[in-house]
């Protein structure tokens, strides 16, 4: 009999939020206040890199929400991420105005280059930030809603769903590679200048974007917590473990799946929108099916069915990627990534946090009074192998 928000904040969740907020503020302050070159100063390029990781963590949360808790393995979240990114990219393109190479006040450079007579209709409104921000949520959300409505209603589940989400991503990849699709073809959208009047390259803007990403991660985490600790969260797990049982109890399974799939797609879109100004480019390769699967493995590494694990996994795997691909071991990175996929599924099916919880939980359970036990357990729910498809 608790409020939806208070219920979602147990000790582990509070710790997560404090850590994210603390790190975010510390890194920002160190970048701004300490002199450049000082040992403790975090250089701006690193702030942008961390910002990227935080965006990936949001994407990982969105995947965990549907895969870890509802058992839907989407191989299309890279597409929702990229769509959010493109919506933001379109806003940033419109902000360039007449400062482009061709100096056209309305048309972005690539349109001048490709002889567009006028702005395509779907580019209208993206000069306004609020509109672009709305589209960041709406476009991925709407695609997920339509796709999910079709798929869940006809009970496409398991690997079939994974395969058709991958086909969806692939179709979008092909479409965005086309010049006449109106999104810059294979060069994508880049050469951004301003966001809300601030120079995207400036140190201050970078730090602000990083902080905003941390804030969004906390917000996304809270939303996910609120969902998974509600009765709806229990139901999602019930659907994951025994879908037809929930039907025979009188639940409309497709509505629940659709709700959580759409919510998750919106979150992925936000992650993409925050990602684009920090990396300075969005192009069709973001739709590559491999990207979506890679994001799934972050969640698997961190521990699916644990929200902190998903975020942690995203940061750990991407840090490893940055570390190895920039060093002499670069040619071996794909071997490592491939091995990671295999080893995690074979040897660490609960992921880092899930395995940790399995050790920690019995000890912790003794210390916690009955009253808040049900909330504390939430993070420890072990994903069961999917029942046979």
């Amino acid at each position, binding site marked *: *009999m608790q409020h939806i928000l208070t219920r979602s904040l147990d000790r582990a969740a509070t710790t997560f939020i404090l850590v994210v907020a603390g790190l975010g503020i510390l890194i920002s302050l160190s970048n701004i206040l300490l002199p450049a070159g000082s040992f403790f100063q975090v250089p701006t390029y690193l702030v942008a890199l961390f910002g990227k990781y935080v965006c990936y963590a949001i994407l990982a949360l969105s995947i965990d929400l549907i895969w870890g808790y509802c058992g839907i393995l989407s191989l299309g979240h890279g597409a929702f991420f990229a769509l959010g990114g493109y919506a933001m990219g379109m806003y940033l393109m419109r902000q360039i105005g007449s400062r482009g190479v061709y100096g056209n006040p309305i048309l972005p450079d690539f349109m001048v280059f490709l002889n567009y007579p006028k702005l395509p209709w779907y580019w209208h409104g993206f000069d306004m930030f609020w509109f672009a921000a709305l589209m960041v949520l709406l476009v991925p959300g709407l695609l997920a809603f339509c796709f999910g409505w079709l798929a869940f209603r006809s009970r496409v589940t398991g690997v079939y769903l994974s395969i058709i989400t991958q086909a969806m991503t692939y179709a979008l990849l092909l479409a965005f590679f086309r010049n006449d699709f109106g999104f810059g073809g294979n060069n994508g959208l880049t050469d951004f200048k301003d966001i809300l009047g601030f120079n995207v390259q400036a140190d201050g803007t970078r730090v602000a974007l990083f902080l905003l990403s941390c804030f969004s991660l906390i917000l996304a985490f809270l939303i996910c917590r609120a969902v998974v600790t509600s*009765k709806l969260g*229990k139901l999602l797990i019930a659907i994951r473990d025994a879908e037809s049982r929930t039907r025979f109890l009188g639940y*409309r399974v497709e509505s629940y799946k659709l709700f959580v799939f759409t919510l998750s797609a919106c979150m992925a879109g936000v992650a993409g929108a925050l990602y684009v100004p920090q990396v300075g480019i969005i192009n069709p390769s973001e739709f590559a099916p491999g990207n979506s699967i890679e994001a799934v493995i972050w969640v698997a590494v961190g521990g699916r069915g644990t929200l902190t694990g998903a975020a942690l996994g995203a940061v750990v795997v991407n840090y490893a990627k940055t570390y190895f691909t920039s060093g002499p071991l670069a040619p071996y990175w794909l071997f490592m990534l491939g091995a990671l996929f295999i080893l995690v599924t074979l040897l660490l099916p609960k992921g880092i946090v899930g395995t940790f919880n399995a050790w920690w939980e019995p000890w912790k359970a003794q210390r916690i009074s009955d009253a808040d036990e049900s909330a504390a357990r939430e993070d420890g729910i072990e994903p069961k192998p999917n029942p046979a498809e």
Partner: protein
Amino acid sequence: MNVMDPRVTSAILYLDGVHVSFDGFHAINNLSLALEPGEMRAIIGPNGAGKTTMMDIITGKTKPDEGVVLFDGSTDLTRLDETRIAELGIGRKFQKPTVFESQTIEDNLLLALNVDHSVKGTLFWRGSKDESERIDRVLETIRLKDVRRKMAGSLSHGQKQWLEIGMLLAQDPKLLLVDEPVAGMTDVETHQTAELLKEINKEKTVMVVEHDMTFVRELGVKVTCLHEGTVLAEGSIDDVSSNERVIEVYLGR
């Protein structure tokens, strides 16, 4: 059946001339059956007689090729899906006990309660005194009160069967379809289950599919024997078990 034609029959569940075939195999063949309100019926039959398929048809999992399936004398079940049929008040226990193994016994029952099942309702659910009292009552009935906070997956096979029956009770349906409730139970548990079902039957209509003849005898209700998707014999357990065709089917010809 349309709305203009209320109550074709007094039966709570009425099947007439139902056919189902899977790729040429006739799983259900001209099956006709009627359950009166408040009745308890035992369904027996050898493997492959179509018992589970019949339950699939009643609960909307399988659509019959032809035939009439009516609930409460007026609702055509063949046009509805599982969710809608469950909402109407038909509960089902599966042959293989199916509970939510990674959740507590309490939560299993909570999910089964027939309260607001909409997305919004469950997202903003806050619980109520009435709900927890109902859960307590069910826990009492199925004798799992002491382990209410344990994971359902950690229960024994027999306890899972009981939990699933408990979920049916929480669902509070008018008609219970119970598929092999005593499979894997000890004699004592079997006896207790029979008592439990008789208790439930005081308020609700029950259909039990079971192989265990001692159990069926203990229930002491009307028995229907299915064979090759159709009704072979119907009557008291003694009548049915002395029926020559039934003996032939069970012992082989």
